[in-house]
């Protein structure tokens, strides 16, 4: 177990290193000059050049990368144009938000977590539940209804369902407040009220996919020998389905769920835009639009961290769910 974890974490570190190098190179490949956003319209080339000089954008790229990495682990001095001393983990200074990148992240990360985690619980319960029921009641009206639901969910885009939910529950019925984020620590009820539409919209979209996957997996598992054996030795259906079939059927779903949740944590751009909530996704979009390179770097890195971590978690879960898997 410990050996497995160390191995996984090492390879995760390697992945993150590769991502950081790529993101850093992308930073320079972008068709945008990071300093143009910092000048008024009638800014002259000489002043732009001085700004570039001061920001260290004229230094060799390797040096810039080393300085950036040093900032993450021990902090660095960014100069007065970027707020001065920046303590570890320093991810640079955001020109768009006029604050340290870590300050922005500290604010928007809880938002995205608050959107994604409850939504993921909702879509997994709903999706897997529907898929199972539909597999067990194969061919009946329950099955057809579930399939219809999942088809609808998979074919409607979030910006559509989101807008409909907003119009019905916020603008017309006025039963919910405008979508917003309050910390769960400050006011759990308001936290839920402000985000529930985002959860529902996301869950509707994803649960559809999971329902279909779960149904197919379950059907396949039900036709396997070990299920027949279980049945033949006289186990109750509950035990056959619950303990044997479900565990086998759910393994591939966990892989996909891990990737989905990881990716969603990296930024639910469309959800955040539809509901006008400022999380990691929108922050990334504005950073790209505004040419705010330190912020772009940070959002790319954070997204990578989530995906990599999600994969480690998935591997661990495998062992729990599937007794055939041993962690080595």
């Amino acid at each position, binding site marked *: 177990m410990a050996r497995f974890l160390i191995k996984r974490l090492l390879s995760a570190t390697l992945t993150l290193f590769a991502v950081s190098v790529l993101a850093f190179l992308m930073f320079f490949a972008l068709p945008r000059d990071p300093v143009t956003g*910092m*000048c*008024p*319209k*009638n*800014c*002259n080339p*000489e*002043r732009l050049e*001085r*700004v570039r000089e*001061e920001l260290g954008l004229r230094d060799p790229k390797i040096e810039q990368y080393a300085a950036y990495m040093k900032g993450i682990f021990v902090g660095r001095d960014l100069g*007065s*144009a*970027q*707020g*001065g001393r920046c303590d570890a983990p320093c991810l640079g*200074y955001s020109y*768009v*938000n*006029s*604050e340290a990148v870590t300050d*922005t992240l500290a*604010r928007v990360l809880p938002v995205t977590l608050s959107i994604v985690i409850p939504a993921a619980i909702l879509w997994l319960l709903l999706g897997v539940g529907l898929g199972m029921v539909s597999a067990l009641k194969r061919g009946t009206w329950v099955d057809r209804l579930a399939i219809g639901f999942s088809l609808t969910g998979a074919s409607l885009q979030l910006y559509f369902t989101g807008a409909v939910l*907003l*119009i019905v529950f*916020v*603008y*017309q019925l*006025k039963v919910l*407040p*405008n979508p*917003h*984020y309050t910390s769960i620590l400050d006011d759990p009820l308001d936290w839920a009220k402000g985000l529930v539409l985002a959860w529902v919209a996301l869950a509707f979209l994803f649960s559809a996919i999971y329902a279909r996957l779960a149904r197919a997996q379950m059907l396949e598992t039900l036709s396997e020998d070990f299920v027949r054996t279980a049945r033949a030795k006289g186990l109750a259906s509950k035990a056959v389905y619950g303990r044997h079939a479900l565990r086998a059927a759910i393994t591939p779903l966990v892989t996909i769920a891990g990737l989905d949740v990881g990716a969603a944590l990296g930024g639910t751009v469309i959800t955040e*835009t539809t509901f*006008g*909530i*400022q999380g990691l996704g*929108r*922050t990334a979009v*504005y950073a790209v639009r505004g040419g705010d390179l330190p912020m772009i770097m940070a959002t790319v890195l954070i997204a990578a961290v989530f995906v990599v971590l999600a994969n480690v978690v998935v591997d661990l879960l495998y062992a729990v769910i599937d007794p055939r898997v041993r962690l080595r």
Partner: protein
Amino acid sequence: MRNRVAAAFALVLVAGACSETTDDGPSVDQQRTATGVIATDPKDSLGPAPEVLGATKGGTFTVIREVKISHLDPQRVYSFAGLVNAPLYARTLTTWKDDGKGNLTLVGDLAQTPGTNVSNDCKVWEFKVKDGVKFEDGRPITAKEIAYGIARSFDPDLTGGPTYVQEWLADSADYDTKWDFKANKGALPPGLTTPDDKTIRFEFAKAHCDLPFALSLPASAPLPPDKDTGVNLDNQPFSSGPYKITKHTPGVEIVLERNEHWDPATDPVRHQYPDKFVWTFGPDPNAGANRVIADSGPDQSALAFNGVPSALVSQVTGNAALKERSIISPTPTEWRLSINTQRVTDLATRQALNYAIDRDGFIKSIGGETVAAPVTTLMPPATIGYQKYDAYPAGANGNPDKAKELLAGKTPALVLGVGDDVVERGTQLKSNLEKAGFKITLKTIPADAKLDETKKKDNPWDLYLDSWAADWPSGASILPVLFDGRSIKAEGNSNTSYVNDDAINSEFDRVLAMPPADQAPEWAKLDERIMRELAPAVPVYVEVAYYLHGSKAGGVFVSSVFGYPSFVNAFVKQ
């Protein structure tokens, strides 16, 4: 002075609406023109500002906007949202008294008058600071803090703000190399002095009659040196106005609450009606407008700052209750079809283009009268001293016959450059102009490069659409900037018609040397003369601002200076 990129984006958002102009559609006050002066009577600069009809105290006024305001630090504010927000917490040396109908008066804000032109040559200016003006901590505002504010605008770290005053003081575009703010903290830039606590004095190498106007921008706001947090001031500015920022979450919310040290008796324009102003960022333009339409809870006293998007125009104009809650007004942002006179050298051709233009058709194609209003002058109607004229009268839809007559059988082949995000505008112009005998070739330019490319002197196009919004509504910040040929450089030109006429250039010099208050009628005359003698462009339209507010929001009007909502009179109906 800058091309208003933000405004262009806003317009792109609302453009493309199918235009449906019916009799009961919205009515735009086409006649809104600026009559303005610089106050000569010190009484005009005294407070308190006259009470707003029906205004009551209390409540929270909410402004809904999609993205955050780019800067709050007064020395860095230069975006429209920033410019209309800043007066709530930053006072300036001068400011505009604006009745929202075009009557503008430049008055003293922190200064007792809008400035004394000491030797009448616009090279030495003096401002006397009012008594009783205070910061949010109760400290008095003196000439020292105002001068410090101007000094810190020399700091190259503090990007984003206007650069007029710095350039004039340093007599150089590279003002930050002429005077190093960080190396000289505690000192003042060359030409700026404070003979005593009540006096601030500007001495320039050259005449700058526009100084009183330039000082109306937030960059002349005061700051005590011990409150200067450098770049961090941007998230927590120090207030001198009727409100102070009590909470700021970048990209999410700004909460402004009453500043009890602000004395209405010193302020000629601002009020302090709502308990709070709240900017809330996030909702896209549709969601913002939908919230205000729904009119529930705090949104009843809200304004949707991103305007009425095209998808909602027919819903809003068709609903009497919503119509009552909408504000529609032309803005000072003017779009013209620039003619590259280096390539189109024949005056008759340029005049024929002016006869041929179908303004009505063009405006319909971009969304109709809630988006644009036609103009025939180079200065927008919101300019002080504006005189309406039409040098080439051809009716709302143009006169192709008259154009053909001028062309005398020629069929000039012209290249029209158009941003690839608004190709349909090019198509509209092409079909319009070809009716008058022109042969138009449409060339698309990547939208984000269009501005830079047309500003290059040797650009390969004959015609392109250009916009201009001046930082103050004086001809001085429009005509010489756009049509003085002596300032043409290899790139970065604002004179995108590339005209260079000696007679007109010397007229610019003559008018610019006049006392600012006497310049206005001269600019109007010059506007018409440029159109008649040079026809360097085809004036097409000014942008129209179209806003919606909740049923309890009152006192909002569209600023005659910036064309965006002004909050100095805003209140919440109780």
